[in-house]
């Protein structure tokens, strides 16, 4: 599967570069900064942003309706008290993890292939966390009182229940959002200064000038910068693990069959990275075509991301297997009923679709031929995103709808308001992404310059 004898070794080598040959320092800077500064706003961008913005208004409508009427508009009720709100919260939070993994862990592991994808993967993290945060805050029913979730001295004599993983979530997610935003912004400062220096329009000069915070590129600036990014990477690394671990505790700490499983923490983390890399692929494959970035986001990047996806997908599959085996081995009738209910209950199609999307489909990534087939990769990445959404559906409503007492069983179906909110967050995510692509350098200019081969870099200066 790994071998490919027909390919002459030379071809393999060039295809496995992190930057295509022939680039100099100048061409890298020109290419990336031009997207923001000199090129005219492409028509496709306007159409894409327009459509995303319209979809975003769906979110505003659905949340507006929610504030007027209350969460009775959603499909959640007894016995299924957690539905689309938590499914989509976990789905979006999971997607964010690839950004942090790429920017923090791969930086510490000295993986040079992260360079061209880290900037927009981090942006993706931030936007995904923004989408995720909407759900629990609005699920409280009174989002204007969301600050009650924080422990602060108050006259009401209330204090959050520190034994509840939902409170741990508040801290995990808000720390995650803060550190990710800092990491992203600090990493961008040298590039913002480049844009400030290259901008011709006065407005752009002021805009990037303020964002660049007086960066002059002196040796002292760089030394401080290096220290800061290493420290932030060190801070962000445990977050890759901790955030989704705490999310898994939301379920595993309870005793609902299907939730109370010790494998949940590592299996949730692997699932988050799996979903995150799928989303990075979904975004980077069209991006590199539209903005002609194939030289920077090369086949090697796609190949490596596909491998990460395959590995994490196998871990997720291991989680499914252990859950199924232990449901039988434990001899617990509720656990084994839950499994039977997943396999052949009213939501069985969701379960089998999940297995197809998350376990079967990624197996084609064992073959290099498919990892190099961009269309195929794009399709698999979308299938995995759907699969990871289905996984949260299986874990949340399917575990809740038939628990211990058959007299209190019931079904869960999302309402049109649920769908509007979910599709609306897709619009929010896409709108933020389009604004990011238009205003900020989507690839780290100065880091790309460090991987230009030195001889070539100088010869063309």
């Amino acid at each position, binding site marked *: *599967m*790994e*071998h*490919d004898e027909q390919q002459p*070794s030379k071809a393999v080598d060039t295809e496995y570069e992190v930057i295509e040959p022939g680039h100099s320092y100048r061409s890298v800077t020109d290419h990336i900064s031009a997207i923001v500064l000199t090129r005219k706003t492409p028509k496709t961008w306007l159409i894409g942003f327009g459509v995303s913005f319209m979809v975003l208004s769906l979110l505003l409508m659905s949340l507006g309706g929610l504030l007027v009427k209350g969460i009775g508009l959603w499909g959640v009720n007894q016995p299924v008290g957690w539905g689309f709100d938590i499914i989509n919260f976990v789905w979006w939070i999971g997607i964010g993890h690839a950004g942090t993994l790429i920017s923090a862990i791969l930086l510490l592991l000295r993986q040079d292939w992260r360079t061209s994808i880290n900037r927009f993967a981090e942006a993706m993290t931030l936007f995904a966390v923004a989408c995720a945060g909407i759900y629990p805050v609005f699920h409280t029913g009174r989002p204007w009182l969301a600050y009650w979730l924080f422990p602060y001295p108050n006259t009401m004599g209330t204090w959050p229940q520190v*034994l509840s993983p939902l409170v741990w979530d508040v801290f995990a997610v808000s720390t995650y959002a803060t550190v990710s935003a800092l990491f992203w912004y600090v990493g961008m400062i040298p590039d913002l200064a480049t844009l400030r220096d290259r901008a011709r329009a006065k407005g752009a000069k002021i805009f990037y000038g303020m964002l660049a915070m007086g960066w002059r590129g002196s040796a002292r600036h760089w030394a401080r910068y290096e220290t800061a990014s290493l420290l932030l990477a060190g801070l962000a690394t445990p977050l890759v*693990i901790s955030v989704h*671990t705490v999310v898994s*505790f939301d379920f*595993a*700490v*309870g*005793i609902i069959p299907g939730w*109370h*499983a*010790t*494998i*949940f*923490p*590592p299996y949730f983390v692997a699932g988050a990275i799996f979903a995150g890399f799928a989303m990075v692929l979904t975004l980077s494959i069209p991006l590199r075509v539209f903005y002609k970035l194939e030289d920077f986001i090369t086949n090697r990047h796609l190949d490596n991301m596909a491998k990460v996806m395959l590995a994490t997908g*196998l871990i997720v599959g*291991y*989680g499914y297997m*252990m*859950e199924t085996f*232990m449901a039988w*081995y*434990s*001899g*617990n009738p509720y656990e084994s009923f839950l499994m039977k209910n997943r396999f052949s209950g009213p939501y069985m199609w969701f379960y089998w679709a999940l297995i197809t999307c998350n376990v079967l489909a990624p197996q084609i990534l*064992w073959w290099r031929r498919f990892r190099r087939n961009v269309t195929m990769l794009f399709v698999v990445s979308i299938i995995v995103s759907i699969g990871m959404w289905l996984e949260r559906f299986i874990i949340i409503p399917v575990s809740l709808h038939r628990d211990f007492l058959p007299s209190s069983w019931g079904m869960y179906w999302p309402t049109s308001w649920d769908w509007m909110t979910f599709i609306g967050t897709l619009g929010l995510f896409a709108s933020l992404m389009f604004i990011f692509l238009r205003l900020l350098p989507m690839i780290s200019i100065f880091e790309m310059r460090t991987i230009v081969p030195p001889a070539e870099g100088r010869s063309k200066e």
Partner: protein
Amino acid sequence: MTAERLSGMRNKALIAGAAALAVTAAGMAANPDQFWRSYLLGFLYWAGVPVGCLALLMLHHLVGGGWGIVIRRTLEAGTRTLPLVAVLILPVLMNIPRLYLWAQPDKVAHDELLKHKAPYLNTPFFLGRTAFYFAVWMALAWLLNKYSDGQEKSQSDGTWKPKLQLVSGLGLLLYGLTATFASVDWVMSLDPHWFSTIYGVMFMVGGALTAMSFVIVVMSRLVRSEPMAALMKPNHFHDLGNLMFAFVMLWAYVSFSQYLIIWSGNLPEEIPWYLHRFHGAWGYVAVALLLFHFALPFVLLLLRTIKRKAQVLAAVAIGMLIMRLVDMAWVVTPSFHGEHISLHWMDVTAPVGIGGLWVAFFLTQLSRRTLEPVEAHLLEGGH
């Protein structure tokens, strides 16, 4: 020089092992039940090393890196000890009813849960599964060693590297499955009523940590003479120390996850496992694990100065190896005695005896081939 050194170490290991085994055998006459329990403890501890070596070797073939090149010979020698491990499990397999409750028909007859599990927990299937695990591990070890030889002889990566990667990719998948079910069979089923879905991960991480610590100790001895003295630089030990650090953290992560989830659920079918292991003196062992299996190595391995000095890092690794045995004893022994701590002197002599034999065999395997790494030319000049 290295050859002499290795054979000197081998003789010492052999003598220590034989002496400890002789003492333990004397104990067998007095207390056969305890002998087999202690033997199982020793076996489980040492079986983790070659299986962990196998996993680390496959991981290295997939992700590359200088850390793997310098320890590749050691890992390969570790995997070649698997036949000895297969021999070492035979006495356990001959005493299944003595060790495992589910193999005692009178107990099973009055226990609904054990009857439910009988299709899985029965002697013939248990033997078959154990044979299968060893078949898979030895086949992987054989292929990896064979291809590695091929790579060395041909002096080119063209044909051998893809083969090594293919075997490693599929091999890690098979390893994940076999190591998980081996831990369920050999250890978890000692408490046949209890279950935990993260158990296999805990054993895989624990085995990798034991193997990594063992490899660091071996490398700290090999680096005293050629060829490793010239090849291994402080940055290689730094990387190995970082890996050990990662496994310490992973061990703490999975152990804490299992504890928190079972503690908060507090279900009668799950919590006894922890009640037994926190009761009385076992509670102090649990605290010792927290302090010396996690907190202390965590702090020490954060320090660059420790990771870059081979001999200092090796001292941390030796401490880790001892704590791994304590952890294994904390997991295994209460299954036999419930909450009463009853560590027997054979719980020390049996692991030492089996370890002496295993280490001697390992050193023989290590001295059979050159220590010069296969891909030594890929190593950069270190700092």
